[in-house]
């Protein structure tokens, strides 16, 4: 499916996510890289050695979610923009999703925006909690959005 449509299946998304226990502990990187391509910056960006060294540059990234502290350094370093950080401990009803966003205008903190799924379809309104923009991010700002818990594995983008 993915290779026909560009949209991962629910099973593929499920497999990219860590266990419920790990999710409950706080921020963690979710790598949605489903195809062997010659690319390894996620490994070089990771300071926690959570992303294992690549034997072959075409390997899929292997992340040990227990070693990942969700710092998000890999987000803006992934040329495929395939990484997000999910903080499931954010609040009772909401999770925090940190995603790369390379469009203008950037949203403002506190703004209510439209949460979109992996097809770009509207799911529900979400709140922009943080807009991170810095030199290290090199023109790939990271936007944190608060998403209703039930849409943790559904929402992956937003529009204003």
């Amino acid at each position, binding site marked *: 499916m*993915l*290779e*026909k*449509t*560009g*949209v*991962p299946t629910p099973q593929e998304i499920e497999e990219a996510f860590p266990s419920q226990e790990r999710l409950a502990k706080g921020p963690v990187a979710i790598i*949605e*890289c*489903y*195809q*062997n*391509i*010659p*690319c*390894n*910056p996620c490994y*070089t*960006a990771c300071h926690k050695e959570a992303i294992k060294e690549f034997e*072959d*540059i*075409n390997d899929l990234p292997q992340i040990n979610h227990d070693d990942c502290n969700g710092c998000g350094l890999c987000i803006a*370093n*992934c*040329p*495929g*923009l*395939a990484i997000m950080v999910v903080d499931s401990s954010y609040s009772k009803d909401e999770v925090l999703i940190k995603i790369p966003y*390379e*469009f203008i205008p950037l949203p403002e903190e506190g703004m209510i925006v439209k949460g*979109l*799924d*992996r*097809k*770009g*379809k509207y799911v529900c309104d979400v709140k922009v909690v943080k807009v991170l923009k810095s030199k290290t991010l*090199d*023109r*790939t700002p990271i936007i944190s959005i608060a998403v209703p818990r039930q849409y943790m594995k559904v929402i*992956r*983008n937003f*529009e204003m």
Partner: protein
Amino acid sequence: MKQVEILVVGGGPAGLCAAINAAQAGAKVLILERDEKLGGQLIKQTHMFFGSEKQHASVRGIDIARILLDRIHELENIEILVNATVLAIYDDGVVNGEIDGKYVKIKPQKIIVSTGASEKTLAFPNNDLPGIYGAGAVQTLMNVYGVKPGNSVLMLGAGNIGLIVSYQLMQAGVKVKAILDAAPKIGGYLVHASKVRRMGVPIYTGYTVKEAHGNDSLERVTIVELDENWNQVDGTEMDFDVDVLCISVGLSPLGELLWQAGCEMKYVGQLGGFVPVRTEMLETTVEGIFIAGDVCGVEEATSAMVEGYLAGLAAAESLGYEMENLEERRKDYLNQLESLRSGHMGDSIRLGLDKVTVRSEVVKT
């Protein structure tokens, strides 16, 4: 007549890297670039590159161009001429070109041809209407000149260029209505596809353009589904009101100079068209003529850069320049190329290269 040790034809990623390595070895290098700027297609690439640190992974193409140009300008034995189009390579090794409107003759000892590739097109009714552009042309218009190609775009081709240019169109504020590709599967990296999908752009695989419509310029495009034998399926037509249709159906190597110089050329579909027979060190069948980048076979810019480094080393070595750790460096470049091509995405590239690469073992026997 101008004398030079190494002439590099084409100042894109491959040519720049070739010039850097040849000049670092001590050779006097002349780069001729037909555009007014060096950098080739790198200067239009706003996305981060793939690969590893050695190929500047996760750095944007525009910034890689700057890194390479800084190195070029540090090297005093590199001369650069822009607005310089090479027209011919003669039997006596004399190269002529038009430089700033003047006819110039140059006698190089070695030549590295890194002329790149040009965009292919596709046959369908009204494919010549203004508003139908090569995807690379649209990239040039919006990323070099800052001019939008139009209001809404249909992208033909879901390879990396089609996917990347679609994303860049959205970054420039242009609506992309859909991406289609005749192949049953997306040809580009799926991470690029996912990027445009979650922006709401549909991707239609197994579809092609049936017809374009418009009077003086494009107004509408009809697409149609293809069956497993690539025949159009009646009744599956869909219309898109767009003023731009981007064609991204592949590139073909610009090998004219190599043909003219008498290099043995072979048609290799996997590499985009006619490409020169070469050694692993990227020397063609005409001694002293080396190649690097898309002219060897259409690939990613990452491999073009590594090929450039390799050809630069080989050309300098053939002039008798001695280099430290030559064998080690050469092996490193060959390993980089091998790993960039080793995955599933490199299957057809490897098949293609096997048809035109004369391995060193064979040369020795």
